[in-house]
């Protein structure tokens, strides 16, 4: 089972780009990397997934190096409403969340 490690918390300011890096050293060949966002009193919400290289959608970008032992979620120009907990997951047959990164966006 690939465990993930990410920073416990990060602070940013409105309008900045935020990069959250996750390490997953023992990721398996068939595993995907996914990121979720969670607001208080809500279930997590899927943001993005990738296998390798770069993936971009309307919300975020995901950068995955060739060895796949880490990944970086990039949030462009964050706003106050992006304050949330962000989880990195390595998904195979199960779906295990770590403690996540608590992002606080300040005005």
């Amino acid at each position, binding site marked *: 089972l690939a465990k993930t490690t990410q920073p416990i918390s990060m602070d940013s300011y409105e309008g900045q780009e935020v990069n959250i890096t996750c390490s997953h050293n023992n990721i398996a060949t068939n595993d995907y990397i996914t990121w979720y966002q969670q607001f208080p009193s809500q279930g*997590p919400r899927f943001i993005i997934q990738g296998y390798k290289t770069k993936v971009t959608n309307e919300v975020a970008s995901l950068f995955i190096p060739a060895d796949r032992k880490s990944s970086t979620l990039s949030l462009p120009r964050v706003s106050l409403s992006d304050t949330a907990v962000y*989880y990195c997951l390595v998904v195979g047959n*199960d*779906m295990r*969340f770590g403690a996540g990164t608590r992002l606080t966006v300040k005005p």
Partner: protein
Amino acid sequence: DVKVTQSSRYLVKRTGEKVFLECVQDMDHENMFWYRQDPGLGLRLIYFSYDVKMKEKGDIPEGYSVSREKKERFSLILESASTNQTSMYLCASSSGAEAFFGQGTRLTVV
């Protein structure tokens, strides 16, 4: 619109009671999951199921059991509720890497 529905938003039960938490999904997903979430601990996987009548233990299965008799329904059972099972319980379903979550059940055991 995809939906994962948990039977109760808030629940208060007494110590020793048998508690059933129900989860229903309408997306025909193979995989379903039960988590509990406590402050500072993230989401911890209790049980998951990748097919009808199949179940796998997660990281904290002690004190819990599950039932999946139909594809759309995954039930979490607390055999004898204890105060340390007071928590937010979240159900999810997926057919791949993207999971959809229910609104959660906040269970208080008194």
